[in-house]
Each structure stands twice: as C-alpha cells, then as structure tokens.
C-alpha cells in the first residue's frame, strides 16, 4: 500500500510537548516522528491520555496556554509550521491543514444556516470571490460528503447528528487542504451512521489525494480506513507500520495487548485478554520503556533504557523484546460472515 514514489505531505520530526500544571510538568508528547505521503492515511491509536490529540493540536498549532513545545519540527510541504509566526500560521491553517474535531457536530452555530457557515469559511480564506461561486462550492462539498445540497439553507437543529458531522467534514474540506486530521470524528455516532461516514470520508480522501491522520481509540475503525497505523503509549509513538502488517503481526507487546482486548462480533468468540494496570503518570513517567510496569516481557534493560527501534522492513517498534512474526500459514483464519 505504501508507494515510495509519492511526495511527502508531512514530516514530523522529534516532536515534544509539555503541559505546565500545578502538579508539575506533563510530558504529553515525547520524541514523536513520522512521515505522511500524499493520498496516504495514517491512524493514530492508543488509550486516552496517550498524546494522540496533543500531536494533532501541535500540527494545527492550536495549543492551550499552558502548553510548551519542547522541540521538534512539523514540516508541511517543506515549511516548518512550528517556526511560523501566528499570522503566517493563519495562512496555513484550514487552507493547507484542516481538522475535524471530536464531537465537532456540536460546534456549528445554531443561529446560522449550515451552508452560510461554510461560505463564511470559504470567504475568510479567499477561496471564492462571488456568492454564486461560494454556493456552488458548498453544493459540491455537500454532495461529496453525501448530503443533499438543498439542505444548505437549513439550520443545524434541522440536521441529525450524522448530518451535522458530515457538514463539519464538508467545512474542513472547504479550502482544499493537503492534509486533514480527523480526531475521533465518529465516536459520538451510532454504528450505522458511522459506517456511512467512514466510507464517504475514505472516498473523498482518496479522490482528492489528501493526506489524512485518523485518530481513534477504536482499532476496528482504524483497520478499515487507514493505510498505516501508529500506536502511541505514554506520549510516545511505540510502533509504526502498514496497517495490514501491524494487525497481522504486531511487534510491540502493547499493540498486541490492545488488539486482544478488543471484542469482535464476527468470527470465533476468542477470549478477551485484559491489560492489567493503568497508563503511567506523565508528570513522572517511569524510566526506560514507559510500558515496562505493565509488560510481561520486561527485564532489566527495559527498566533502565528507552528501547531502540526494532525494524522489520518499514514496520518498526520501540521495544527491546519485539514479538516474533507468526509463520505465514498461521494467519488468522477468515471468518464466516452471517449472510
């Protein structure tokens, strides 16, 4: 799925972020690096508090007051976003890099028509100059996300949750961004609506050849919409690889544990294996590998030194004792679908 001929949209190099709190400094993101190619989608998964959303907020430069960038670069088409002034960043945000926030469907202004709100965004970024062009653009966006363009003069309360979420996705797409960040865009929705929005989002992303970063705690969703997957734990990226590779043979014990604790409705009813313990306190993270207090393979070196990357092709994990790849014949057998 990864074709190395594609141009890079995004390079994140050694990104670190701290939050100042009364209890101390929280190491929310620590040394995160990854690349994203044009038209590629990358999933970021992990438990809440692992830094997924903090990474997204760094990319958008939408950080709360108590946040401090402790280093690193975010290069979008060659420009380091972190070195731009606020004024310069405004030219990039939404036009080059856009985001669909968690529960964004509640962010529409209830007293303005939905289409009008998107036209405002289009005009503010100088995408279209006449009203007719802007309306035409909104109609196109509506069709793209599976909304009837006739609905653009309705108010948000006349939309269902799923329709509002689509309108917000349309708004994020309104300035033709190179990169879209979707932070749990379907978590508040029911499965049937989620299924439809995921399909539409994927089609649009591939049609427009956008890069996409898809953040979710639901590994089932990530398995379906992404080409590559990055697993985060305690502010660090601990495993990265093609989605198929990571699911077929996870290298990091944390990734494997995450997957085996996920119930599935299809196929055999495999026993759920829990993950004992809690994620570490990031004010005072454990020395060495942050996962070692919960890891069954941990030994002396895990407790003292942060692991080097173990490579398997372009699939890697930050682990001293990566899991072996299963022999090919032992692939998970295909499940029987109810007809």
């Amino acid at each position, binding site marked *: 799925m990864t074709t190395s001929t594609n141009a890079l949209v995004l390079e994140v190099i050694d990104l670190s972020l701290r939050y100042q709190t009364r209890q101390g400094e929280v190491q929310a993101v620590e040394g995160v690096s990854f690349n994203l190619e044009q038209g590629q989608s990358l999933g970021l998964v992990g*438990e*809440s508090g692992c830094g997924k959303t903090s990474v997204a907020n760094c990319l958008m430069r939408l950080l709360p007051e108590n946040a401090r960038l402790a280093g690193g670069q975010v290069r979008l088409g060659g420009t380091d976003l972190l070195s731009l002034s606020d004024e310069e960043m405004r030219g990039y945000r939404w036009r080059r890099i856009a985001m669909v926030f968690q529960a964004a469907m509640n962010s529409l202004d209830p007293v303005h028509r939905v289409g009008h709100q998107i036209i405002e965004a289009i005009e503010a970024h100088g995408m279209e100059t006449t009203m007719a062009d802007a309306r035409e653009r909104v109609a196109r966006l509506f069709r793209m996300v599976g909304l009837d363009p006739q609905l653009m003069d309705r108010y948000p309360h006349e939309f*269902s949750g*799923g*329709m509002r979420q689509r309108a917000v996705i349309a708004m994020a797409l309104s300035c033709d961004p190179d990169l879209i960040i979707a932070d749990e865009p379907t978590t508040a929705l*029911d*499965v*049937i*609506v*989620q*299924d*439809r929005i*995921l*399909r539409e989002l994927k089609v649009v992303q591939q049609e427009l050849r956008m890069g996409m970063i898809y953040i979710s*705690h*639901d*590994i*089932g*969703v990530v*398995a*379906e919409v992404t080409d590559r997957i990055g697993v985060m734990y305690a502010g660090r990226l601990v495993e990265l690889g093609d*989605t*198929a590779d990571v*699911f*077929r043979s996870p290298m990091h014990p944390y990734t494997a*544990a*995450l*997957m085996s*604790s*996920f*119930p*599935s*409705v*299809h196929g055999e*009813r495999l026993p*759920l*294996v*829990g*993950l*004992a313990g*809690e994620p570490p306190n990031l004010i005072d993270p454990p020395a060495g590998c942050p996962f070692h207090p919960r890891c069954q393979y941990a030994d002396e070196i895990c407790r003292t030194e942060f692991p080097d990357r173990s490579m398997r092709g372009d699939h890697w994990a930050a682990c001293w004792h990566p899991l072996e790849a299963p022999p090919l014949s032992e692939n*998970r057998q*295909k*499940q*029987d*679908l*109810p007809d």
Partner: protein
Amino acid sequence: MCSPNPENPEIRQILLLMTSTMQTPVATPNQTHAGQDALVAVSGLTKRFPVSKNLFRQPSSFIHAVDDVSFALAPGESLGLVGESGCGKTTVGKLLVKLLEPTSGQIRFRFPSLDTTAGGSGDPVDASEIRSADLRAFRRQAQMIFQDPYESMNPRRTIYDTIAEPLAVQGIGSLMDRVDRVTEILTQVGLTPASSFLFRHPHELSGGQRQRVAIARALVIGPSFVVADEPTSMLDVSSRTGIMSLMQDLAQQLGISYLYITHDLAVARYMCHRIAVMYLGKIVEMAETEELLRNPLHPYTRALLSAVPVPDPAYRRDHPDIRGDLTLPIDPPARCRFYDRCPVATDFCEGNPHPPMEEQSPGHWVACYEA
C-alpha cells in the same frame, strides 16, 4: 406461531388474522428460554412521553419510547438490550428498577426474598404493587449501574460514603459492620488494598476505578437483579476488558442477573447469554447470543451487525444497505417501525400493523413479516 410465509399477500393476511385471533396458549417472548421461573417477566411494557409543552392543554403527541415490549430474565441470566441511541433501551432499564412508571404493561418480579404488603417472600410481585413503603425492600433486590462514572458520584463524598450509603439507607449493620462490608466489596471489585481507597474522593480515581466503585455501590446490598446501562462505554479498551470480566465473575459468584444495556454488539457478545435488539421502542429480535450473531433474521439486526468495523484489515465486510436516519418515534404509524429504512419491505409491510414477535426456531424470536 411459526406460520409459513406464502407469497400471496391475501393468504398471508388471513393466516395472520387466524393466528392472532386463536386463543390457544402459544409461546410468548416473556417466557424464559429454558422454561424456568423468571426472575423478571415483562409483558406489553409501554412508556410514552408527552412532547407537548403547553401547560394548559392535554399533551397532543407522544414519543413512544417503549412500545409493547415483552421478555423474561431467568435467575443468573444476563440479557443484552442492544440498539442505537434513542431506541428506548435506557427507558426499559429505568422502568425495570422503578425509576420510571410505565404507561401500561406489566413487570413481575420473583425475588428470593421480597416481603411486600402485596405478597410474601418468593411469590411473584407485580411492579405496580410496589408502593413507596415497599420500595426500600425492592431496591435491595434491584439496582442500577450508570453509564458515566464521572457524573454518577458525588465528588465531595469519599468512596466509603458512596458505597456505604445503600447500607445506611437500608439500615444494615452497625458502623463497624459497614466498614467491614465496604472493605470486603472493594476487595471483590479489585480495588486493593481496600484501606487505601476507603477515604479517597472520586477525582483521585481513574475512570476504570470509578466504575469499579459504581459496581461496588450497586452490589454492596446483595441485589439479585442489576440493570447495567452501558457501564463500559466511557472507558478505555484496557480498563473495559477488566470491568467486563469483573462483572461476569461477580454475577457467577453472587448469582446476579443483568439487564445489560449497550449499543455495542461486540460487548454484548461477551457479557450476555441472550441478546434483544431494539429499534424505536420495539424489540425486533431476540435470541441466544451466538445464534443471533450467526443467524440474524431481522434486516435491522443484519444492518447493525454488518456496520461494526472489524479489527482486521484483510476482512471485507458487507456494508449495511438501510436508508435514512434514525427518527424519533413521535406518534408513529401503526405499520412496522422499520418500514421506512427497510431494504426488504413489501406492500404487505406497509398495509399491516407492526409485526408480532414470532418464534422462528426454539428461543429465536423475530418481529418481521419477511424473516
């Protein structure tokens, strides 16, 4: 009522009329699958909420939140109530623990020890006869665990206060007994050492730990029936697995029956012996868990199942083929509730009332003319 489905709609109409007018004792979905005495038996349960807000007028329209729902729960059994948001599953839960009063229909409890003014210990008791005086005895047997562990606890009270309150309300034990009991239940729900949790406040605990406290609070007085309303949906994957296995272990040890409310079929698969699928106030299908997942008969159940993402990139699932969005059941037409979104709806479905629950195979009930 395993009537065949002939093609001719007129014959079907006649057959339907015959079956619905026959007074022979037929199986009803409020019998437990094994034919045991039900712990909770629900028949024709209905709850309507008025949507008219005018104080001086009779309410003119109603949300049919729960409409003619029947099922039964055997002692020690766990029944999953699955459906999308707004389908009425939480309303059913609240009706069963008497946080709401039904508009019509019957709920009968057969608790091992429930002495009420209406009847003695061990006899089935009708929920409508449990009045305020008996409510305290009723709550000893029926408890509820809520969805949000962040909102369902008083932030100013310690964990001990929170868990000991049901004991105090019920007047169980001396102060020392209560401390012992709370310590014991904290250990049972895996918050150890219990002494280090007794005098903490909710904000000092993680979401998973809080949900363990909520479980301890519900179980501390030894209920035989617990309504669990999405107890894991706010939790992370890792703590979710822990809570699920804890609830299963406790159910086995203490012989508790759960009505397990969830939107997630995968969670229901692991937690429940049987699953009932709800759509807009109606139970549309009910069967033992693996039977329901392997052999779903109702088009809505099929859609729900095929919409669940599969954590396996190589797996290609069929996408659900239903149209439109969930609506609110405000004075819905008499025809099948699923008609507007159904991929297999026929003229027969349009012209006839909502289909009755029929037993297609032993224990597998479905409400669909086309199933």
